[in-house]
């Protein structure tokens, strides 16, 4: 048994669009970016934390086991007899309240696993991976913030013949990538925007290290799937798409498996609210379906015209 532990905020079996085949996807907690459209805000902080779902609360006055179980004297705020907020500054993330809650009114965002424990979950679906060409996908948050854990997990998977896939924004020191290079079958990453200043405005960080890491990855023989989330007011210009295409062609030699253009989705709002956070793009007015759909297909065709394996969405089999 190793003594490393990984903090995972979601285990999702039968994942079908993050890597080939049927996969079990583990979402690692903690991220180095802060993308405005992030749909997994519970993955931002590296620490376990409670998520509140007032609709599920059975009523504070007749239950209240959350407050009673708290040893840190955190204030529990109630509205219309439902638990709606806690004092996050005082909360230490021990999650005793979530343990005590009978109804799912408090969800656990983040649980510690040893690699062996995580592997035991992954292994259950081995027959399905074998049949479909699937395996495990580790995502996040930023999976590489916990690279040692992921490496250990992948080692266990490899030993049992389970395929591995890593989804990472790659905004980490290159040393972390190197730990996973020999253990990863498929890489999935993003090129969110080629203009570093705009990248920084929208994700909190410039893109230099990310692009450098992609170059490194490809130079070491990995053939990643690259995704571009197409977001109006951020990166949805022909100029950016062409620049991305040029980068892939010239600097990566076109050595990628697939280039996926993903539409913007207003996702995860209920999760922001479970953390008492507001959604950063709350005011954003997404374009009509016809508009973005047309654009996505147009961008795809531009990239295909450049000789790249571009697809709209992630539902097309990787050939």
């Amino acid at each position, binding site marked *: 048994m190793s003594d490393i532990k990984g903090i995972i905020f*979601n285990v*999702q*079996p*039968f994942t*079908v*669009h*993050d890597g*080939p*085949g*049927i996969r079990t*996807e583990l*979402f690692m907690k903690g991220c180095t970016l802060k993308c405005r459209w992030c*749909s*997994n805000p519970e993955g931002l902080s590296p620490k376990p934390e409670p998520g509140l*779902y007032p*609709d599920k609360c*059975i*009523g504070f006055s*007749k*239950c209240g*086991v959350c407050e009673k179980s708290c040893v840190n004297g955190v204030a529990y705020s109630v509205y219309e007899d439902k638990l709606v907020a806690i004092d996050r500054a005082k909360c230490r993330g021990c999650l005793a309240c979530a343990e005590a809650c*009978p*109804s*799912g009114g408090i969800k656990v965002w983040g649980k510690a696993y040893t690699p062996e424990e995580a592997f035991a979950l992954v292994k*259950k*679906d081995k*027959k*399905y991976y*074998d*049949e*479909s*060409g*699937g395996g495990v996908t580790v*995502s996040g948050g930023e999976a590489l913030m916990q690279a040692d854990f992921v490496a250990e997990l992948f080692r266990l998977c490899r030993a049992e013949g389970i395929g591995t896939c890593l989804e990472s924004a790659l905004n980490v020191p290159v040393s972390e990538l190197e730990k996973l290079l020999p253990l990863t079958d498929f890489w999935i990453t993003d090129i969110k925007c080629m203009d570093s200043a705009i990248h920084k405005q929208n994700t909190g960080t410039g893109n230099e290290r990310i692009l450098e890491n992609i170059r490194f990855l490809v130079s070491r023989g990995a053939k990643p799937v690259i995704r571009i989330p197409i977001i109006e007011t951020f990166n949805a210009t022909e100029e950016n798409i062409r620049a991305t295409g040029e980068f892939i062609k010239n600097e990566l030699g076109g050595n990628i498996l697939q280039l996926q253009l993903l*539409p913007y*989705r*207003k*996702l995860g*709002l*209920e999760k922001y609210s479970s953390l008492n956070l507001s959604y950063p793009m709350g005011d954003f007015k*997404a374009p009509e*379906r016809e508009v973005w*759909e047309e654009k*996505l297909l147009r961008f795809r065709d531009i990239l295909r015209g450049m000789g790249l394996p571009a697809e*709209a*969405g*992630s*539902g*097309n*089999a990787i050939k």
Partner: protein
Amino acid sequence: MLNSVKSVTPLAIEPYDKEWGVGVSGMVENPSPFPRINEMLRWFKERPTTADPQRMLIFTEAYKKYSADPQPIKVAKALRDVLMNVPVNIWPGELIVGEIAAPAKSAPIYPEFSLNWLAYEIENDPLDQRPNDVYILSDETKKAVFDVVDFWKGKTVEESIKSMFRYEQAKGSQMGQGVYFCDLYTYAGAGHVCADYEKLIKLGFGGIRKEIEKKLSELTVYLPEDIKKRTFYESQLIVLDGVKSYIYRYGDKAEEMAAAEKDETRKKELLRIASNCHNVAEGVPNDIWEAMQLWHIATNMIIIEANGHSVTYGRFDQIFKDIYAKSIAEGTATRELVQELTECMFLKIHQLCKIRDRGNITVSSGTIMGGTGFDVGGVDAEGNDITNDLSYIALDAHAHTRIPNPWMAVRLHKDAPREFKIKVFNVIRIGTGEPKVFGDEMMIKSLMRYGKPIEVARNYVGVGCVEPSIPGKTYGWHDSCYFNMPKVLEITLNGGKCQHCSESCPQYAKCVGAGSQLGAKTPSLAEMKSFDELKEAFQTQMRYWTDRMISSVNTMDIVHQALKPLPYLSLLVDDCIERGVDVTAGGARYNHSGTQCVGLGTVSDSLSTVKQIVFDEKKVTGAELLDILKKNWEGSDYLLAYVNSDKVHHFGNDDDYADDIAQFVLNTYCGCVEHRPNAHGGEFMPGAFSVSINVMCGSHCSATPDGRRDAEPVSDCLGAVHTEVASHDVSGPTAIARSLAKLDQSRIGNGVILNWKFSPTSISGETGRDNLISLMDVYLNNGGMQSQFNIISRETLIDAQTNPDNYRDLVVRVAGYSAYFTELNPELQVDLINRTELSFD
């Protein structure tokens, strides 16, 4: 690994990998490439559903006229008179003709089974004012019912069964506390059978007549057995006169219509129909069109004889394989013609109606006949894959009609071609719920367990919903009873009584009031010291109640044999002719009675909850829990939430604690039922499906420890628990499959149903399709017997948006995660609704 696509030659008129969208479901404008089919679909939709008195009137006259005849002769003559005299119609555009002794979308009436309810409902609960299953009855029909209802008093199957039932049988039945429901075969025929169509196509009715005449000539004049056989054979010959006339009259009708037809194309079609009918009235079919005509009308006559539903059409691609090849080779048919004929056939099947009583339609709505089984795929007697053009044609025919008939099933096995699987799952992804799939491995294993040699078992067909049956060889009484296990659990927890036992119960005087109790005497939960005691008491009650269920079904069986022999069906099921015994009396090679257990999930989760919270954690005592249940969880919000949460072990999550208990429950039921003798010379087989009777079962059950309140539905089929508070399966589809694979499904010889629910996005794109195929390949090759699919449709999502309270447990795959649909923001809901048509994830 995925087996690769072997060929790209078209196997039907559509490419094998044609996609029709995901979750688009329902009716679309002009789904068929054939204008005729689209026209017929429209015509059908506009026509109201009615009942027709002709069959009832002719039967009544016959019973009066032939009252001195022995019962087999009497019923044979009555059927003959119907077939010879009932008006025949050919409807616009039809290429295959024939009805069920009533016009299209009209239900015949079967007074010999039951009639009192119909007369009662016409007067007190009009059939045209029902919330569903509406029937428009003409004044003539209503009058006809009143005219004959008195004649039938005391002569029906229903009344005879009820008079034979004693308190011991009635008290647990639908007439008593609802421990089991056996009303289906009390009010109607048994159906649930598949004829030997291969033999019929080979010999024709004329050839079968010759077989009977030969057998008749070999009888002695004096042996008592032979005298009985003589009556049987004579009854069959009488029926054959009617058969010939009925088919022939459709030929005459077509000829008559052709003479008046101005359109040259239609005139030619009508003349072809005429010659088809005239030839197959007795003769052997020459090509596939004639063969399909014979197949259709032969099946209809099974339904004219008796109103048991789930009369099954058999293995389409096996029955017609040879004659299809012959017709193509000789140029008497093209692939396009067979496609169109198949779609015409689907519409004919969709015309069939069965009028049911109010009680029945409350739990299972839909005016359709029901159980019109139709299989494709699978292996032959030697174990080789049989898929051919016809397999693909049938699947395309569903995509081209999108109607809920026939009830299509696909047999899958390890060596099924990749193209076939792609076609099957593309049709499934449309989202109509058709077709369902069977896993050959477990089905064949199960059939062998119940006495069929391997080469026979390999030719199985799914009768009705899912019941494994041998075409032309099994008389299975597959749907004879539903057994309400949660009610047995309630009686167990309460020491042999109902949870709400009181003087106001109509049964009280005979039961607790008479110093007795409803069930066996076992201790109540309050008196139990260990979980093992509870298991033991449950087993005792299960044995007690299955004894009474079996007794009831056998009683019904005895009445059917006495009052309603089936000489026509006996023509088409081996070995009735060979042995000279009617199918109802055990003439078939394989005889069964199938009884389904309902509420496996509810009972399993209830037992594991009691084990955990009473005996392991000691959160409450047995007495306290009983009190909470009696109060219907009122005031116990914390515990109700707790038992519905993932903090308690639940079946369907690959959790051994809960799954071991599910195995115990299922094995207890199977042990109580399997191999027990039935009244037509065979044995009982347990089934595990509820269709929608889990709603009715739930209405007879008070609150259960799994966190279900009074009268909520119990769990469906093999599925996990979904109470109003929460769904208990929270670990995804592969965990469900792993839990289910732990059950020994081959022991459930009468079949199982497992309902899968997918949101369109989780199975969209090529990736989604291939992963769905892989999921099923693994499940069906690792202990799974059957699967059917609910692709949550656009309509459902829209309804969920408008009525969120009805859809609190509707889980959808959003993108990177799954979520409760009703908790999502409105914009995203709209987006998900829109995404049903595209696959952009």
